[in-house]
């Protein structure tokens, strides 16, 4: 079930929440599990098989790892079994039956495999206690708010929160607002920018001028950012409605002045996941510079591949790893550069990165990037102005949402005794709901489809 669909917003969410709110706090994990089963089963009953496999491997391997904690070799073996079984389940039941390994579907389908792995790893390292309640563990593995593929949640905090989640009016109202805001970010801004980029590609026929190719890559990156951020807000809002706090997944990446900061503030949960389960085991306790750099590079490639398994993303990951390694090696010199220079340099590199992943094949990616440097120097005013005009309202919305000052102003206003934010919340909720419905209803049919009147 698509979380940005009418069926979810108007049917599933109210029904699910009615049952969830009426259930006793200790029983809510079961309701959440039932909700996850409905959502996964809605997309295809076959999807329940890898989920069952991931739950069972996590439960058994988690129990085994705790019992065999003294025997490092055996518990490590169990961990490998968990990893291979989960991967095999996803490959066999998600990838091979023909579902595309695109950004949302692969991560969405693989989210329970990653949760299962994270849980076993934490139990293995003693950072999380074994969960004895199979259903609560299943609720974490298939964590309902994350089923649209983002964000990954940590086992320790989530399992603790799921024991007896409490619903209060503040969390509920904020959760609803965040969820609706996420839908607007994705469908109104992200999807529109993605459509504009597709239109640019179609009109240019792959022969973009230098100016248009830079602008196109920026629009693609902005569109992808809004879609991911929107999905994160939907998940965060949904979890908040259910009484579970999750950390923000984006932290103003557009205002960062280094590639490392950009990467660590963009899809934070994926970054932390790779940091925790790839970087640290690879880097080990060795403080050697070379091993740290190698571990860091492998982790960056893993982060990039977590979005999509394709040659373009591999190129993107490898080049990002290389650039960040250079940035780390020459950190002392780069930090002496003026901030505006660092800002421009960082964001030019990220735009090139988006150009790489905007294309379906590696060859097309390379061609696109070459246009950015060798494309015609013509100032193709008409198409540029057209696309600038078409994307301007959405880019302005993106810029506003990325203003730190707006966030701090909101926090400051909300902390007042008579909060204006609290007063306008009902109006804002209603307005966002109307806006969501407008775009979800129109997105329900492809544009240009005749509707029976």
């Amino acid at each position: 079930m698509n979380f940005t669909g009418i069926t979810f917003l108007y049917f599933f969410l109210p029904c699910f929440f009615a049952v969830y709110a009426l259930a006793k706090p200790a029983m809510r994990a079961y309701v959440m599990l039932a909700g996850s089963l409905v959502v996964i089963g809605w997309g295809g009953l076959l999807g329940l098989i890898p989920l069952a496999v991931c739950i069972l491997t996590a439960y058994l391997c988690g129990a085994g790892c705790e019992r065999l904690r003294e025997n490092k070799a055996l518990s490590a073996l169990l961990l490998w079994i968990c990893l291979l079984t989960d991967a095999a389940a996803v490959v066999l039941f998600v990838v091979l039956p023909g579902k595309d390994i695109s950004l949302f579907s692969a991560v969405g389908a693989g989210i329970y495999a990653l949760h299962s792995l994270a849980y076993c790893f934490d139990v293995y390292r003693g950072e999380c206690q074994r969960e004895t309640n199979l259903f609560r563990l299943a609720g974490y593995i298939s964590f309902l708010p994350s089923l649209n593929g983002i964000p990954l949640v940590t086992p320790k905090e989530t399992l603790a929160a799921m024991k007896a989640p409490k619903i209060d009016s503040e969390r509920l109202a904020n959760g609803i607002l965040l969820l609706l805001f996420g839908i607007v970010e994705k469908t109104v801004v992200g999807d529109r920018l993605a459509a504009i980029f597709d239109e640019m590609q179609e009109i240019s026929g792959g022969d973009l001028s230098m100016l248009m190719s830079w602008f196109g890559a920026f629009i693609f990156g902005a569109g992808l950012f809004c879609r991911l951020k929107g999905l994160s807000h939907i998940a965060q809002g949904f979890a908040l409605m259910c009484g579970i706090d999750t950390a923000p997944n984006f932290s103003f990446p557009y205002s960062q002045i280094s590639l490392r900061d950009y990467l660590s503030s963009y899809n934070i949960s994926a970054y932390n996941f790779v940091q925790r389960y790839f970087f640290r085991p690879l880097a080990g306790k060795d403080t050697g510079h070379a091993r740290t750099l190698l571990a860091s590079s492998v982790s960056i490639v893993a982060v990039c591949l977590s979005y999509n398994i394709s040659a373009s993303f591999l190129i993107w990951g490898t080049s990002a790893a290389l650039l960040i390694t250079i940035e780390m090696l020459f950190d002392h010199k780069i930090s002496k550069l003026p901030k505006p220079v660092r800002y421009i340099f960082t964001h030019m590199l990220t735009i090139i990165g988006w150009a790489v992943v905007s294309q379906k094949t590696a060859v097309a990616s390379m061609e696109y990037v070459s246009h950015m440097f060798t494309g015609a120097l013509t100032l193709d005013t008409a198409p540029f102005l057209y696309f600038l005009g078409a994307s301007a309202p959405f880019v302005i919305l993106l810029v506003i949402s990325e203003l730190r000052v707006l966030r701090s102003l909101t926090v400051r206003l909300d902390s007042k005794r008579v909060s204006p934010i609290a007063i306008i919340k009902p109006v804002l909720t209603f307005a966002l709901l109307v806006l969501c419905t407008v775009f979800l209803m129109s997105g329900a049919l492809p544009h240009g489809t005749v509707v029976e009147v």
Partner: protein
Amino acid sequence: MRKAFNCISAALFFIFTGLFALGAILFSDESFGTAPIDELPAHTEKYIERNFPLKNNWRSLYSSFITAAGQNQIGDVYISDSGLIEVISKTDENKLTALIDRINSFAAAHSDKSIYSLIVPTASGIYASELPDIITAVDQQKLIDDIYFRLDSSIHTLDAFNPLFSARDDYVYFRTDDRWTEYGAYTVYNKVIRKLGFAPIRLSSYDMEYADRDFYGTLYQKTFYNGVPADNINIFRNKNGSFVTGVSAWSGGQEFTSLSIYYTPALSSDNKLDVFLGGNSYEKYTITTSNTEAPRLLLIKGRYANMFVPFLTPHYSEITLVDPSQLGEKTIEETVDVDSYDQVLILYDVGQMI
């Protein structure tokens, strides 16, 4: 205070969503039906989309938002100052070649007949200059020339582009539909009928009846854009009276008869343009006229033909229209005796050909 506003927010959300969800279920015009278990989710989602309360208002609001954001195109429909234009930006060369081959084969099989071809441009071709430079619409004049060049030389080609282009400031295309108006059809008739061997009947010989002043066509149903005024459906009635003595139409083996080429009950239906010959759902139509000595015409029709036929009736004793898209496995020869007609006219619009 804060708690009260939070409660209002949450209550507003659940009341609104709950009422609309109930509305979609309780006030639905259609039954849910049945579907296999694996198709149940898709079936349910489509059912909800079709029955969601105020669905057209939501879509209309969407168009308003999009146009307010400075975009003049919704899907393949461009919103111009004068109306909605369906932009034809691509040609399907395989489809076009197959159609040309079929026409040429037909001409070769009936080489003794006078065969005429009339390919009508759509609004996208006539109003191409109104589209922004960035929208690459197919050059329909060039395309029609190319099609005519590829047609067998025995086929007489008729020019619809230039008459329509000359009259582009008049009401030749609907503002909210992708077809031509009755006046657009007359404009072309006035120029091409001489090639068919007749003198045109002057416009002043017709009374124009406003059959409907509140017509919203298929382009409106694609966009729900309210910024364009409703269309008029005009019926041109010959001042000397109708020449038509009877109309028969066949669909699925059933014959439907009428005394007029205008099916006026359609004006109170959702498909108001079906007022012309009852629409495009018949495989064959036969129109007999009081001009019993006049020649007989076989018209191989596309979507634009129904509006063109009223102007042909004074010139022929019988007009038979065959719609190849409705024939299924049958051929034209299996449907009509081609040899019994004096002239054959193939009338298609560009949108249907590519």
